[in-house]
């Protein structure tokens, strides 16, 4: 696609604003998967986008916007040469900065009855996404990242 003539939004695949609920997140992930299945992105990249969105969007619902009625999330997915650019915006609580750099898996205990049941989300995000950028301005969180086509 000729980017010079296309303009800044021409490669936009998804641009949507939806309620910050777990059920709305579920519906959006299904919608994104259906949309990407129409493009020439690989199945592996489509899977990675779905997994990444599950973590990022539910994190916004459960932490940033927890308890806020009628709150909404903006999601924009743009096609890039090497993959996809994903951006979210919400007007909730700021993201704790330590989550942005890297994440470790929860400790694996010797005894399986002590296994952790949470703490995997940000590890998954960092494992899949590159170029994580977070900005907080005028009470709005803007998180963006890139997903590249996985090597075959």
């Amino acid at each position: 696609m000729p980017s010079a003539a296309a303009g800044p939004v021409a490669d936009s695949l998804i641009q949507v604003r939806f309620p910050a609920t777990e059920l709305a997140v579920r519906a959006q992930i299904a919608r994104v998967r259906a949309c990407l299945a129409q493009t020439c992105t690989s199945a592996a990249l489509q899977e990675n986008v779905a997994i990444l969105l599950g973590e990022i969007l539910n994190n916004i619902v459960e932490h940033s916007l927890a308890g806020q009625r009628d709150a909404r999330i903006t999601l924009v997915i743009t096609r890039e040469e090497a993959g996809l650019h994903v951006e979210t915006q919400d007007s909730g609580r700021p993201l704790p900065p330590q989550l942005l750099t890297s994440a470790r898996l929860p400790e694996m205990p010797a005894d399986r009855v002590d296994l952790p049941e949470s703490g995997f989300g940000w590890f998954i995000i960092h494992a899949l996404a590159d170029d994580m950028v977070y900005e907080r301005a005028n009470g709005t969180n803007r998180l963006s990242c890139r997903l590249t086509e996985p090597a075959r």
Partner: protein
Amino acid sequence: MNIDSELRGNAKLLILREARIDAAGAMAFKEKVRTLIADHEGRVVLDMGRVEFLDSSGLGALVAVMKMLGRGRSLELAGCGPVVSKVLTLTRMDQVFVLHDDVETALAARDAA
């Protein structure tokens, strides 16, 4: 949360009739499985063949189910699709659950768990 349950030998086979175990459904999944495996002391095999999506909340629910089984038993997952497999591998939880290619392989594996 739609889950069918069958007893196959000493194994309880739980057949998930849902396309996802996600944040919206993780709690219902956990509680449904809890009732289905109550009083069962043999193996527990979860048919994941229809599950197209798993997120970290769903993964946490699978871990919670595994912990319900206590120290002596593993949770066995059969027929995991690409997204489920990827989430398990990324988080290294593929080493915690017992994975089978499909239900028949799982039920034939007598020494599992």
